[in-house]
Every structure is written in C-alpha cells, then in structure tokens.
C-alpha cells in the first residue's frame, strides 16, 4: 500500500472509530456502576439520531440546535429508562435486569418501526459539512474531520467530570462499592441516573454523527452499531472510559483497513468487531485498560 492510501484510510478510520468510541463510553460507564450490559443503549443512540432528523427536517432547526434537542431528548430518555425499568430491579437477580434491558431495546426499535416505518430516511446533512477538502491527495469531508475533533473534546469533558468534580468521584466510587457509597451519604440512585444521562447524551452525539456520515436514519440502526460499540468497550477494557475510546478506535480502524485492503471480505465487515471481542475474551478478558471487577469487588 502506498502512503497516500494509508493516510486516507487512517482519516476514515479515525472518523468511524470516534463514533464507536462515543457510544462505547455509555456502555462502559453503565457497566461500571451497575454491572449491566445496557442493551437499550444502541437504541437510545437511534432515538438521538431520529431526534436530530426531526429537528432538522421537520422543525427546520439549524444543525447545532438539532444536536442540542437530540442530546437533551436522549439524556432524558436514558434517565427515564433507568427510573422506570432498571431502578425497581436494583436488588433483583442480574438476569431480570438484563431481560428488562432487552425488553426496552426491543420496545424502542419496534415503536419507532410502527410510528415511522422501517425504511431508512435520508438525513438532511448541512451543506458545509459535505464540503470536500483535498489535502495533498487525501480527500475527506468537513464532517469526517469534525467527528474526531468533537469526540476528543467530549472525551476531555467526560474525563474532567470524572476526575475533577465531586460527581465524578461519586461515580468512580460507585464502581467499587455501592453500599459504602450509600453509607457516605451519597444518593447512589441519583448518581446512577446521572451516569445514564451522560452516556445517553454521548450516544445521541454519536448517533447524529453516524446519520451525517451515512446520511440516513432507520429504527434498527442501533442494533449492529450498539453491538460493535459494546465490543469496543470490552476490547478497551469494560469499566474504563479511556479504554472505551481506545477500543472504539481499534474497531473503527480494523473495519476500515480490512474493507479497504481485503475488499473480497467486505461482506464480513460487520463480523470483525465480534471476532475481536472473542479474541479479547480468550486472551485478555479485562481488555486493554481493564479493571478486574471480580477482584476489586471483594
């Protein structure tokens, strides 16, 4: 491969990886505090993308306002699912929580399917984002440059919240011991709700980026993207926000590189994340930056 082609794919991988990373952060944070694979997370991303679509196509809002609408809407939805569906089951066996999560996921997919139809709708991408930049032979759109930059900014923000604020300290403490956190006078349920809100807000941004890059939205889009983002979270080390970002980039890059250089395996594009997940579980279950929850809990 020549250098130019490689750099081109690097840019594409960066953009795709950022989207996975944004969604993976939500998985990893919820897993951190609740030990729950939130199956509905991918669908909350889908709702975010749909809200962005409605903001722009129906209400005629400018892009930034539509993003805000999507972020606020998804965050509220995330907190609502926690309050309605997960909170009553805090003391129930884990399997009940997982089944409820699957139920929420299926509900969101199908209610959107019933209300808006299963066909994909074209996303009204603002013109300036489709502007093509040609930097010495490397061709990319403004959108694919914007995605990684915004992702890194949001990541910096999340890390600041996690490590420099009281709420962040509570979230990190919650990952270790819920009972002690309660004893310290912290309302664990409120912190968990904040985690859901933060994760869902990031997922909404990821969903809108997805809708901008592959300009369409459809009710089932969250399933596969969510699955890959979860794989990213495990590859990076579940429970670790930095790990989720690294995992997202790894999955994004592998996908782009394999499709670009082994086009005959293009049909298997969606399977790579899964293969990577299996390999990580086989050889390093804690992931790249992972914490061993089995040990830290006791």
């Amino acid at each position, binding site marked *: 491969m020549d250098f130019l082609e490689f750099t081109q794919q690097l840019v594409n991988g960066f953009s795709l990886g950022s989207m996975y990373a944004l969604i993976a952060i939500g998985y990893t944070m919820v897993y951190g505090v609740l030990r729950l694979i939130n199956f509905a997370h991918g669908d909350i991303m889908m709702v975010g993308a749909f809200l962005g679509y409605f903001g722009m196509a129906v209400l005629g809002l400018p892009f930034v306002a539509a993003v805000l609408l999507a972020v606020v809407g998804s965050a509220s939805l995330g907190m609502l699912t926690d309050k309605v569906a997960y909170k009553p089951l805090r003391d129930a066996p884990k399997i*009940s929580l997982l089944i409820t999560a699957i139920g929420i996921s299926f*509900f969101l997919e199908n209610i959107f399917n019933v209300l808006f139809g299963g066909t994909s709708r074209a996303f009204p991408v603002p013109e300036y984002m489709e502007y093509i930049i040609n930097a010495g032979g490397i061709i990319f759109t403004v959108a694919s440059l914007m995605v990684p930059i915004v992702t890194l900014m949001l990541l910096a923000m999340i890390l600041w919240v996690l490590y420099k604020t009281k709420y962040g300290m509570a979230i990190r403490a919650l990952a270790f011991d819920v009972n002690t956190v309660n004893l310290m006078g912290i309302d664990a349920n409120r912190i968990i709700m904040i985690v859901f809100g933060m994760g869902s807000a990031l997922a909404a941004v990821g969903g809108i980026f997805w809708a901008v890059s592959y300009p369409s939205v459809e009710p089932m889009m969250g399933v596969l993207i969510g699955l890959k983002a979860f794989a990213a979270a495990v590859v990076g080390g579940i429970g670790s926000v930095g790990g989720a970002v690294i995992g997202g980039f790894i999955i994004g890059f592998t996908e782009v590189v394999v499709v670009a250089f082994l086009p005959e395996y293009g049909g298997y594009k969606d399977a790579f994340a*899964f293969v990577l*997940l299996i390999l990580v579980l086989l050889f390093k279950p804690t992931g790249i930056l992972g914490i061993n929850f089995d040990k830290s809990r006791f």
Partner: protein
Amino acid sequence: MNIVIRKDQWINLAIIASALWFIWFASTHFDKYTVRILNNIAIFTILAVSYNLINGVTGQFSLEPNGFVAIGAYVTALLLLDGDAKEYQYDIEDPYPWVLGLQANFVWALFFAGTFSALLALTLSFPVFRVRGDYLAIVTLGFGFIIRILAINNPEITNGSLGLNDIPEFSNLYWTGGVAILAVIGILNVVNSKYGRAMKAVRDDEDAAIAMGVNTFKIKTFAFCTSAFLEGVGGGLLAALLTSISPDLFTFFFTFQLLIIIVLGGLGSTTGAIIGTVLVIGGAEWMRFLDEPMNFGLFETPAMPGMRMVVFSIILIFVMLFAREGIMGKRELTDLFKRKGKK
C-alpha cells in the same frame, strides 16, 4: 424381576399417554390451520424447554436460539435436498460439489443438525464461560448476526439471501410432537440429575457452588451445549415444516419470542416453558389483528405492521417489573400436587 412403578411415575406415564393420544387425535381430526399452529407449538416447546435450561435453570443469560436454530435448519435442509433439487435452485453461485453430495434421511439429518449446533456451542463456551460476567448474552447476540452474515455471504453453500426452497416436508405432528415429548423428558431428567442440581447451584450462588466443588465451567458448558443440540434439532424440524428457509427467518425476533415464553412461564420451570409456549404462540396468532387496520367507530387506525412486537416487549417489561416469577415461578407441575412438608 420385579418392576415397581411408583405413583408419580404412573402420573408421568399417564401424561405421556394422553399427549400421544392428543397428537393422534389432532392429526386425524383437526383442520390444516389448527394442525399448523400445533406444529409450531410443538417446535417452540422443544426450543423453549432447551432455552430455559441455560437461562432459567443455569441462570446464564443467553440470546442464542436464533443462531442455533438457523444452523439446524440449514444443516437439515442441505441434507434433505437431493443433488438435482440443489443444482436447480442455486441461482447466485454454483454450489460446491460437496454441497451437492450431502444427503441423509430425516433422522440422521436432525441428529447432525443437533450435533453441529452443539459443537459450535462448545467452541463458543471457551471464550465465554472462562470469564465471569454477562458476556454470554452479548456473544450469543453477536453470534446470531454472524450466522446471518455467513449465510448471506456464502451463496455456494446456502444460496445466499434467496435461501433454500422445496425442502421435503417431513415434519408432521407425529414428528414434532414426538420430538417435543422426548425433549421434555430429556430436559426433565437432566434437571433432576446431579448435573441439574449443580446448574441450579450455579444460578443461585456461583461462589457457594465453586466452594462446594462444582466445576462451574463444565456445568455451564454442558447446559449450553444441551440447549444448542435441541435447538439445532428444533431448527431441523422447522425447516422440514416450512419447506423453505432464508436468512431473514432467523432474526433476533425469533430469540425474543422464546425469551418472552420462558419469562412468562417462569424462568427455571420446564412446565412453565410449555405453558408459555402455548400462550405466546397461540396468542401471537390471535394478536394478528393488532397489525391490521382497526376501526374504533370514531376513528380508524391504519395497518401497523410490528404492533404485535411492541405489545410483546411491553408484556416482557411488565412481567419483569411486576411479576418476576412468571406463571410457574421455579416450580414444576408435579410440585403443585405435593403436599407441603412432604419430601
């Protein structure tokens, strides 16, 4: 030799005999539509009791049925179709020579379908059960996707997204009902064996089970492979009932239906799984009206395909939040006859 049959064994024999009589009665007296629903119920009974083994009895949340059912269906279809029939319908790519050569009778086809599924389950167990946590759910969810991707991308074997057609219709109520009875007996024997007790121990307290010397990896793998075997067989019966299969048949909705069945019936109860099957499969037929246009007198709603699934998911969430035990809880039919305190 003196064979003594205990009272509860008489009850079991009576249940089996009446089930067999019902199968005979239904296939000679009922109309085609009813028999078709009964066939579905029988196949879903096989799937539900085996799915319940890993989810309900062993307590490992898994989302595998659609993957293994697809494997079983494809293996059976490839073994039942003869070479000419295959050559005729492979439109996308020419089939591999060995695909044309695959041939077996129905019993062997079902057996191979189950065995192939179980072997795949065994390979999946190594990455999944070595680590604690809920990776089984996500890996099996991904597995279902991979199977679909493989089926679509290997038209030389599976005829791609067109699927396989004109599969000989071997399944009838004797087959589906007979296998269902065998599956239920088999699963009940597993549950009541020492392996079954170990499975329940893993579900209730994994640490305590380890401390008592239970090899949890082995027990989970055993439960998972048994489930996969029966799901493969169920998939084979399904293929021979529907006579045509395609990758789109085995989406996640398939698994979701089974999940509702076992949750509604009561996680961990085989009787519950059977009751759940009858309710959900029968109910799904009845609820078809939800997808169609409705006239409320004052206003009329348009046709809403997918409304049934919304209702299904609401039922699932509702049961989980307010009636977590389902209909049977962890009890079996025989437990209901036992008097309290009598062991």
